[in-house]
């Protein structure tokens, strides 16, 4: 393979990135980097956009690699790592060679890095499965705000789709200004400006929150008080949206 001094651009979507990576691998090009097309290059960098007309879809991708590898790549894609595209590229190259055995090849730097990021994203998703708090709106819709580091909105919403199948819910990623909306059938991801303002809280909401807060206060055993332990499990960065601790200093 020859090393080229270009930064390759993709349109920001997951499938386009996959296709670009596969094209690069086919052409035996090692990119300097891969970036979404919003990327602002500096004076010394040269960017290039390839024509990815010959494309493969997700099913073909899964057949070519595996379900497990697909999941890893997707978790990398939604991570906030600045070099995620390049890590995906190298992970795919190794995957072609090793298939699912790649998960044992942590001595390879890019594999170790990729699996570390995958775990980090998975962990954050799992944390929010617990720490997310819904509020009930006037129209019975459940509404929650989150501020995750990684773009976990969709995978997190999938969890609540199975759990609260018979509810309408909206989850807002405050930092990314996107919302997921579940209408008892499908999940839609929309941006903030396409969205109507959130209505008032239901009349019952304050009462239930109050009950929960008093339960929270009661359940702690004062003889065992251990703030450091609590912080380890529930770091401050999550507190803003956790109603039972958000007003604690």
């Amino acid at each position, binding site marked *: 393979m020859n090393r080229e001094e270009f930064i390759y651009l993709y349109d920001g979507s997951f499938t386009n990135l996959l296709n670009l990576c596969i094209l690069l691998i086919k052409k035996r090009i090692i990119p300097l980097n891969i970036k979404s097309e919003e990327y602002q290059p500096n004076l010394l960098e040269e960017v290039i956009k390839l024509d990815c007309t010959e494309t493969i879809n997700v099913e073909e991708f899964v057949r070519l690699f595996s379900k497990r590898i697909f999941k890893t790549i997707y978790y990398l894609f939604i991570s906030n790592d600045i070099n995620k595209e390049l890590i995906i590229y190298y992970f795919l190259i190794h995957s072609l060679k090793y298939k699912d*055995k790649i998960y*044992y*090849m*942590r*001595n390879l*730097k890019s594999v*170790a890095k990729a*699996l*570390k990021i995958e*775990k980090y994203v998975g962990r954050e998703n*799992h944390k929010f*499965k*617990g*720490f*997310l*708090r*819904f*509020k*009930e709106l006037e129209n019975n819709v*459940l509404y*929650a705000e989150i501020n995750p580091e990684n773009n976990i909105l969709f995978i997190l919403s999938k969890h*609540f789709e*199975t*759990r*609260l*199948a*018979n*509810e309408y819910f909206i989850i807002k990623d405050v930092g990314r200004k996107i919302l997921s909306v579940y209408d008892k059938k499908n999940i839609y991801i929309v941006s903030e400006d396409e969205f109507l303002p959130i209505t008032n809280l239901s009349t*019952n909401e304050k009462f*239930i929150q*109050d*009950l*929960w807060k*008093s*339960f*929270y*206060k*009661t*359940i*702690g*055993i*004062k*003889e*065992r*008080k*251990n*703030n*450091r*332990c*609590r912080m*380890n*499990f*529930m770091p401050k960065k999550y507190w803003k949206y*956790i109603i*039972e*601790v958000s007003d604690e200093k």
Partner: protein
Amino acid sequence: MNLKEKLTILADSAKYDASCSSSGSKNRQNKIGNTNVAGICHSFSSDGRCISLLKILMTNCCIFDCKYCLNRRSNSIKRACFTPEEVCELVINFYRRNYIEGLFLSSGIIKSPDYTMNLMIEAISLLRNKYHFGGYIHAKAIPGASEALLKRLGNLVDRLSANVELPTETGLKLLAPNKDNEKVSKIMNYVKNNKSRRFVPAGQSTQMIIGATRESDLDIMNKSENMYNSYHLKRVFYSAYIPVNSDKMLPTIKKPPLVRENRLYQADWLLRFYNFKVNDILDKDNPNFNLLLDPKADWALRHLNEFPKEINKASYNDLLKIPGIGITSAKRIVSSRRYFKITFNDLSKMGIVLKRAKYFITCDGKYFTDINFFKKSFIERNLVLEDKVKDDTKKIEQLVLFNE
């Protein structure tokens, strides 16, 4: 009495039950709620314990007079009793808002064991059948209740538990004269022998109070091992004794024995996942845990002739015996070394924490430092120091090198 007041009273009385796990159940799905195999923690209370279930008593009225218990008959405290509807309302409202993973329902004994169990069954079956709640439910079985009721309750919940309370029968006689071991064993036996798939899918657990009576750690661990073997328990919980009543039978302590409790949990893990036996870690001459070192490190230091172990050769079982190496790490090592020879550098890349392990291993024949340092005194001092000054590892290493 309003709902908030009831909730406060009945949560306050329930808080000493340690169990809060919501894991291990089969995936179930209903109109509202499902269970997650991995379990989910929703919050952490001021004492650092996980909150995943709404932990409440059906009532804190009790006909028993156990010396250590807040709810004993002779205490003059406010008494309350939930109606089944109230329990459902709380669970559904909390669950929809993602405060909880489910319900942990226990109860004081009101009128009779059967009466109490019936009350609990009424609440839980309302929750399952009228509200179609599919989330996690853990219920306490009331000792002395009939088998028919036990069967009904077991078919509604994910986990059942009956507390042995104290590690020995003498302790129980002393502090809980109304309870007896036999009734608890009867429940455990019944749960073990009911093989129906819908019956208690997440298994049974129990709890012991630590430090209220004179039992040694060896007595406690023997009791646990015995119960794991005879009843296939999923968990034994250990709860450091906290004085809530004053009684001449009870010990006077300033602080609950939290370090001891922690050591018991560590040893419990060794029994369940690391193929240790109680005899390996404790014996008549050493009936109590070393409070300065965790049981595995303590064991390793007493068996230093079996170390250092070579990462590239040691069997899976041997890897598990290395302090600092857990199940995930051991599996990762075994599966990876088929493809390459593991060095210290690889171990870090594999996400294996070397802080404790490095003293007990070699990688491809190499020790992490001069092999002449491989002595009990050196390792022990480092491990104890590391625990004491967790944040500042550099300082310790310098300190130790100076001393040598």
